[in-house]
C-alpha cells in the first residue's frame, strides 16, 4: 500500500566522506584563524558527525522516507480526538508569502501591521466562536493552552487571596489534562462518569469543595457525547468559587451551534491544528490559543495584541506588554504565527455559515457512520459504548469482539492498515474497555464512510473464519508489528556513529 517496503538506510548510513550538498558563499571579509577569534579552550575539537551527502541523494532519501508514511492526502484518517480534516492547500500558500514567512518576530509593530491585524482579527473570531471575549494566541499547542489556563486559574485565585490546591478532571479526560494540573502545581482529583457517559454529578458534588481551583472538562467529551448535565456542572463548580476550563479539542462538533462561554466556561483552549486545519506535520506544529472571560482577562499572558486608536482617530495594532497582573510569558515571541495565518484563512473562507456547516456535517458524518456500522453488523461485536446520538465522534467497545472473535481492538486496528485506512484511536478513553474512538470529520464523503463500514465488517467476518489473520496483521506495510517493549527496555535513541 505504501511504497518503499525495502528497508531504508538512515541518512548517516548514506554518508560518504567528501560528498556535499551545501557550498558556502565566498569569504568576503579578512580571514582569521578561528582560534584568533575564540579562545582555544572553548573550541570544539571534533566535528559533529553530520552526514556527508549530495543534494540528489538527500532529496531521494527524504522522498523515499516520505513514502513510508500514511497521510491524510491519501486516505481516510478517522483518528478520534484528532480531527483529521482536510488541510486546504490555500493555507500553505498564504503562510508562505514573504510578508508572513520572512517577517522577523522583533520587527517594530508599526512595521508589522498586517501580521498584528491578522492576529487581532483571529483573536476576535476565536472569541466569538467560544463565546468568551478575550483571547491570547500565545500557547503553542493544546496542552500548552491547558497549562496557560491552569496558571491563569492560579493567578485568579491568588489575586483573590486564595491558595487552592486541587483541580478536578473527569476520568474520561485526555492525559494532557491531569499532566497539566501537576505541572501547574496542583493536585489532580478524578471525577467519575455516569452510566450515560456524563460527568457523575454526585461524585462531582462530593469532590467540589473550597480547595478546588478548577474543573477541566471536554464537552463534547472524549466519548463524543455532549454532557447532559453541563448546566448543573457549571453551577456546582462556580458555587465553590472554582473556574471552569474547557478543553477545546472537540470544538469541531459545535461551532456556531453552542458556545463554551454560554455554557459557563471561564477558559477555553483551541487546537488550531485540529479544528482550524493547521496540518499536523507528523506531530506538530500546532497552536493552542485560549479565550477567557472578563474575570480572567487581567492575568492573560504577555504580550497581548491590541488595537489602539491614534489621536487622529485611525487605528493601529500593537503588542501590549503593560499588563501588571499577567502570568507572564509562556514562550518566546508572539506564538505560532504561521499557524495563525492558516487558521485565519480558514475562518475567512468559511465565515459563520461555513463554520456551522462544518460542525453540522462532522456530526452528521459521525452519526451516519455509526448507523452504517450498525447496519453492517459491526456493532454486534463492537457496540457503541453509549447508546446515544453522538456528536462528531463516537466510541465503540471491543469487549464482545475480544470475547467472541478472539481478536483485540489492537488487532482490528492493525488489520485496517492492510486496507489503506488509518485506524481510529484505540484504548482511549480509558474508561471504555477495548475502546475504539472514531472521528470521521466533515471533509469525508459518504462513499468513504460506506467503504470503511464495509471494511470493518469484512475484517470481522474474516476473524470469524480465522482470528490469526488479524492477530498477525499488518502484512502489507513497510514493516510489520514492531517490538515496542524491546525498544523501551533497551532504548536505542540515536545512531552510534
Amino acid at each position, binding site marked *: 500500500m505504501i511504497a518503499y517496503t525495502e528497508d531504508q538506510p538512515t541518512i548517516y548510513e548514506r554518508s560518504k566522506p567528501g560528498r556535499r550538498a551545501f557550498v558556502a558563499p565566498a569569504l568576503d571579509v579578512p580571514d582569521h584563524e578561528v582560534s584568533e577569534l575564540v579562545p582555544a579552550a572553548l573550541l570544539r575539537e571534533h566535528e559533529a558527525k553530520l*552526514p556527508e551527502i549530495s543534494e540528489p541523494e538527500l532529496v531521494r532519501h527524504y522522498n523515499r522516507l516520505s513514502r513510508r*508514511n500514511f497521510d491524510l492526502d491519501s486516505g481516510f484518517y478517522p483518528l478520534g480526538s484528532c480531527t483529521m480534516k482536510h488541510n486546504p492547500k490555500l493555507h500553505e500558500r498564504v503562510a508562505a508569502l514573504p510578508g508572513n514567512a520572512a517577517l522577523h518576530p*522583533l520587527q517594530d509593530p508599526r512595521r508589522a501591521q498586517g501580521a498584528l491585524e491578522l492576529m487581532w482579527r483571529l483573536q476576535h473570531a476565536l472569541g466569538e466562536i467560544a463565546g468568551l471575549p478575550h483571547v491570547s494566541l500565545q500557547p503553542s499547542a493544546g496542552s500548552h493552552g491547558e497549562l496557560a489556563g491552569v496558571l491563569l486559574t492560579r493567578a485568579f485565585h491568588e489575586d483573590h487571596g486564595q491558595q487552592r490546591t486541587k483541580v478536578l478532571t473527569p476520568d474520561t479526560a485526555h492525559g494532557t489534562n491531569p499532566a497539566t494540573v501537576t505541572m501547574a502545581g496542583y493536585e489532580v482529583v478524578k471525577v467519575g462518569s455516569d452510566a450515560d457517559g456524563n460527568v457523575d454529578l454526585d461524585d462531582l458534588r462530593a469532590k467540589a469543595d473550597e480547595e478546588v481551583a478548577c474543573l477541566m472538562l471536554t464537552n463534547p467529551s472524549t466519548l463524543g457525547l455532549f454532557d447532559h448535565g453541563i448546566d448543573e456542572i457549571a453551577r456546582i463548580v462556580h458555587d465553590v468559587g472554582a473556574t471552569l476550563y474547557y478543553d477545546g479539542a472537540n470544538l469541531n462538533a459545535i461551532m456556531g451551534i453552542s458556545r463554551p462561554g454560554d455554557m459557563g466556561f471561564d477558559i477555553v483552549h483551541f487546537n488550531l491544528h485540529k479544528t482550524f486545519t493547521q496540518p499536523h506535520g*507528523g506531530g506538530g506544529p500546532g497552536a493552542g490559543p485560549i479565550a477567557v472571560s472578563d474575570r480572567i482577562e487581567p492575568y492573560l499572558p504577555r504580550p497581548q495584541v491590541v488595537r489602539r486608536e491614534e489621536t487622529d482617530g485611525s487605528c493601529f495594532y500593537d503588542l501590549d506588554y503593560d499588563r501588571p497582573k499577567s502570568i507572564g510569558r509562556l514562550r*518566546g515571541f508572539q506564538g505560532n504565527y504561521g499557524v495563525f495565518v492558516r487558521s485565519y484563512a480558514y475562518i*475567512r473562507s*468559511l465565515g459563520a455559515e461555513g463554520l456551522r456547516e462544518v460542525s453540522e456535517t462532522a456530526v452528521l458524518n459521525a452519526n451516519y457512520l455509526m*448507523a452504517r456500522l450498525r447496519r453492517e453488523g459491526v456493532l454486534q461485536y463492537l457496540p457503541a459504548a453509549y447508546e446515544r446520538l453522538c456528536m462528531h465522534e463516537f466510541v465503540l467497545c471491543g469487549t464482545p469482539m475480544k470475547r467472541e472473535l478472539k481478536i483485540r481492538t489492537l488487532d482490528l486496528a492493525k488489520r485496517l492498515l492492510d486496507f489503506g485506512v488509518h485506524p481510529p484511536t484505540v484504548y482511549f478513553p480509558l474508561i471504555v474497555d477495548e475502546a475504539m474512538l472514531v472521528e470521521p470529520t466533515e471533509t469525508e464523503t459518504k462513499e468513504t464512510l460506506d467503504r470503511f463500514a464495509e471494511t470493518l465488517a469484512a475484517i470481522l467476518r474474516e476473524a470469524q473464519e480465522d482470528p490469526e489473520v488479524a492477530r498477525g496483521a499488518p502484512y502489507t506495510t513497510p*514493516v510489520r508489528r514492531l517490538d515496542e517493549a524491546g525498544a523501551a527496555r533497551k532504548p536505542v535513541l540515536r545512531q552510534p556513529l
Partner: protein
Amino acid sequence: MSTYTSVTPEDRRQMLAEIGVTSIEDLFAEIPAALRLDRPLALDAGLSEVEVFQELRALAARNVSTEDELSFLGAGMYDHYIPALVDSIIERSEFLTPYTPYQPEISQGGLQVMFEYQTAISELTGLPVSNASVYEGPSAVAAAGYIAKHTNSRTRFVVSRGVHPHARETLRTMSHGWGMEVVEAPLHDGATELPELDDTVSAVIIQQPNFLGAIEDVPALTAAAHDAGALAICSCDAHSLAILKPPGECGVDIAVGEGQPLGNRLDFGGPSFGFFATTEALIRRIPGRIAGETRDLDGRRGFVLTLQTREQHIRREKATSNICTAQALNALAGVIYLSWLGRRGFVELAELMLKRTAYARERLRAVDGVELVHEHPVFRELAVSLAAPVDRVVERCRRLGINPGLPLGRDYPEHEDALLVAITERRTREDIDRLAEALGGAVAAERPALQETHA
C-alpha cells in the same frame, strides 16, 4: 463562502434517513435548547479562494519582512537562508499532514526522521539523549528547569541575565506554578557572574553565546553549578555548536535551544522547534516524544515512539511533562537543513559567520559614536552602544532601507542606547559596510551634545 465538506444535498438526505432522524437539528437534540446559539456567529461572510488570497496578500504586504529591508535583527531568530530542498520536502503531504505516529507500521518515514534528528542533536550537543522536539527555545529552558526541580527537589533556579529575556520570563511564569524561586545572576562586562551557590540551587541556567552575543566560559560556569550540587542547563545557539565546545563536553546536564535557525522560517516568531538533549542519567525524565530503534516480527529494523511511560497519555498526572503535539515538521526541517550543510559545511558556515561577525565588530567599533558593549569573543551577534538616542538612529537607518538591529533598552535598561546586531550568511561584507555607514551617519545626525558643540 468556501466549503471543504464533501456531502451533497442528496447524500445528506440519505444519511439522515439511515440515522433515522429528519433534520440536522435533530442531531443536536442532546444540547440543551438554552445553550444552542440562536443567531449566526458574528463573523464576516465566507469568501472564495481568490478573495481570501487577495485579502491575505494585502495584509502580508503591510509587513516589512527581511526580503523588504536589509535586516540585522536577530536575538533568538535569524534570517538564515533556507535551502529550497527543505521546502520541497516538508511540503510533501506525507510529512505535512499525518498525526503523531501512533501507528508505527505506517509511520516509518516520520519515525526514522525523528531518529535521525535525535542523532543529529546528540552529535551537535555532545549529549547522548535527545527528544524529538519541544515547542521552541524559551519554553525549552523552562522544561529543562522542570527536570532539575524533579531531579533534586531544590527550590531555586539561578539564571544568568545573559539568557534570552523571553526564556527568563517563561521560566518565571512556570516556576510560579512549581513554587520555585528564580534568581538572576548578573552580567559583568557582558559575561555571567554567578553568585554564591548553595544547596537550595536546583539548576544554574546559562546561554551560549549569551544574549549580548558574548561567548561564555561554559566549562567554568557548569563546574560552579556542579560544585554546588546543582544541574547545569545551557541554552545554545545551534550554529555555534559547529565550532564551540559542545555542551556535553562542558559538563552541561541539559542542553536546549531554539531550532528556528536550522532551516525554519522566521514566521514572525513561530512555529519553530526547541531542541532538548541530556545525559543518560536523566533519560527517563525527558519531556515529549522520543523515537527508538527496534525490530519488527520479521526481524527488520523499524522505529517506534518509545519510553512512553514518561508521557501524559500513559502516566497522566505522573507524567514528566504535559506536552503532546510538539514540532515534528519543524524538526524535520532542522534535520534536513543539517544534512544539507553536512559535516564540513556546518563548520564552514559557522566559520563564515564568525569571521563576518568579527569584521562587523571591527567595522562598527571604528564608527564614531559607536562603542562595543563588551569585549568578549562573539560568534554571530554583537551589542553596540550608541552616542545618540537609539530609536532615532534606528528610524534614520530604516529610511535607508536598513534595520540595524534590536534596541536593547526594553530588556536591558542598563544598555539604554544599545543595539543588538545579528549577522548571518545572508549579510555580506557590503551589507555590513552599508550598515556601518548608515549607523555612522545616523549617530552623527542625532548626537545631541556633539551636534550642539559642532553647530
